[in-house]
């Protein structure tokens, strides 16, 4: 690729010793807007970023960049291809998590930041954080891994593929060439609905919706949405299509599928050069997309190397989405961990 853009946001200030930088990686549908700050739009992690929150811009210099392949400012399939003067579409190269991390490293270098106090992220953000720590251990003091894994499981791949197929099946998708005409919203909506179910838990869905009916007091015996949960999913799916690009969804889910830290050897060997990095691995009890067992595998490999590691499994009902919703335990453990880091 000839040249590319990375959109990013920073909050807070770099201190005199340049030792308070925190790098936050976002997940599949995130953007660089991690914190509302003075804007009118809410940040995707307002629960964790802000004054009085663990990632406090009055103490730390917080950086969040939009990943390559996304559609929130960084170069992706919907960006203009200078060579053809049209959006890339499927001419955009297939990118990996490591590509995303490398591009963000260039950003960090350009900001003059030489050391990172902590890298963090949930889900795909956690993949990036881990890849970052493995790639740049000498400039990384610590890593906070949340609801994530060291590789995409069969389950992850299966669900991602089904979501991609939903997009491919939309007649408007047209092999990724839809920027001049109708967008494949039906496909993208379906993809998001599937994805959304994987982010919740059986218990939370049961508690929130049960078998409640949305519109009518009793069954109507027709093929239209009647149950509360059906209406909710449809709403979530449709609002997603207003803000996200279908091709980006394809590229990013593919990058998730390709991620496997063990490709170059077993985890214990991979983590060996990370002896000086402090790890905090966090999982959620109801997360079945990136279950605790994945986090424990990482913790085991870290312990085998004698790396300073802490681990908690936070009890929640919200499933994989737990890292995004309000969680006092998550805030407190992360705050306490951060307070002890000395650059």
């Amino acid at each position, binding site marked *: 690729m000839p040249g590319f853009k990375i959109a990013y946001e920073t909050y807070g200030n770099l201190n005199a010793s340049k030792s308070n930088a925190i790098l936050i990686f976002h997940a599949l549908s995130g953007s660089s807007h991690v914190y509302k700050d003075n804007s009118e739009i809410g940040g995707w992690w307002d629960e964790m970023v802000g004054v009085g929150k663990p990632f406090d811009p009055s103490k730390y210099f917080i950086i969040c960049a939009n990943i390559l392949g996304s559609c929130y400012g960084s170069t992706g399939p919907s960006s203009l291809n200078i060579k053809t003067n049209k959006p890339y579409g499927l001419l955009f190269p297939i990118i990996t998590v490591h590509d995303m991390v490398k591009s963000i490293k260039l950003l960090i270098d350009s900001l003059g930041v030489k050391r990172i106090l902590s890298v963090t992220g949930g889900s795909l953000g956690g993949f990036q954080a881990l890849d970052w720590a493995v790639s740049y251990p000498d400039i990384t003091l610590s890593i906070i891994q949340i609801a994530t894994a060291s590789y995409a499981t069969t389950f992850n791949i299966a669900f991602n593929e089904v979501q991609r197929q939903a997009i491919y099946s939309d007649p408007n998708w047209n092999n990724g060439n839809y920027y001049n005409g109708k967008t494949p919203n039906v496909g993208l909506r379906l993809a998001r609905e599937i994805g959304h179910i994987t982010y919740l838990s059986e218990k939370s869905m049961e508690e929130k919706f049960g078998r409640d009916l949305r519109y009518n007091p009793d069954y109507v015996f027709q093929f239209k949405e009647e149950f509360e949960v059906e209406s909710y999913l449809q709403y979530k799916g449709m609002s997603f299509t207003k803000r996200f690009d279908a091709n980006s969804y394809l590229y990013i889910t593919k990058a998730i599928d390709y991620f496997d830290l063990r490709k170059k050897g077993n985890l214990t060997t991979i983590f060996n050069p990370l002896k000086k990095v402090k790890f905090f691995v966090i999982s959620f009890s109801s997360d079945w997309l990136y279950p605790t067992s994945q986090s424990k595998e990482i913790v085991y490999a870290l312990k085998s190397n004698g790396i300073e590691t802490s*681990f908690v499994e936070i009890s929640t009902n919200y499933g994989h989405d737990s890292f995004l919703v309000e969680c006092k335990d998550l805030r407190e453990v992360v705050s306490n961990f951060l307070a*002890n880091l000395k650059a």
Partner: protein
Amino acid sequence: MIERKDLNIIFDIIKPNSKVLDLGCGDGSLLKELIKNKNVTGLGIEISIEKIKACLKDGISVIQEDLNEGLKDFQENSFDYVVLSQTLEYIANPVYLIQEMLRVGKNCVISFENLAYWKNRILFLFRGTLKSERIKNINPFYGKKVQILTVIKFYNLCNYYHINISHQFYLAKRRLKITQIFPNTLAKIAIFMLRGDN
């Protein structure tokens, strides 16, 4: 000085610059002192998230784990000391855990409350209840203590399973030599240091 007396003794036992695994580390007060004053590399295992928050606040590495599952993820002889202070009473299968501790650590330090302490006996004789049962409006199963431990019982356990006791120390309200001679009756808390047969 650590608030809990048995932790102070355990602190004294542990040699500087060693690797310590504290099982059921609570708020990490033992590890905190060891790290600060004896340059120890420490790791805590704890199940309660509130106690974990306290450990993290003091910069202690801590892993949330249920000790009843043993120490599956730990390798042989990976620690100089494995400590289990006033936690054995809560373990469903104490022998399994002790054997795991001996596998993982070169030395094990275990402390527990001696139920045969003379004050407990007098109380039970006159009131028919243990100390904790005197209080009325609390959950009688609070804390889920599952084992009744006495000094003699522990000795018998080690004897039966061929576990080598290398040191023992007994605590009572006052430091009297006689406590060390009649521990089953006079010790409030017992502390044992174990070494595996290998």
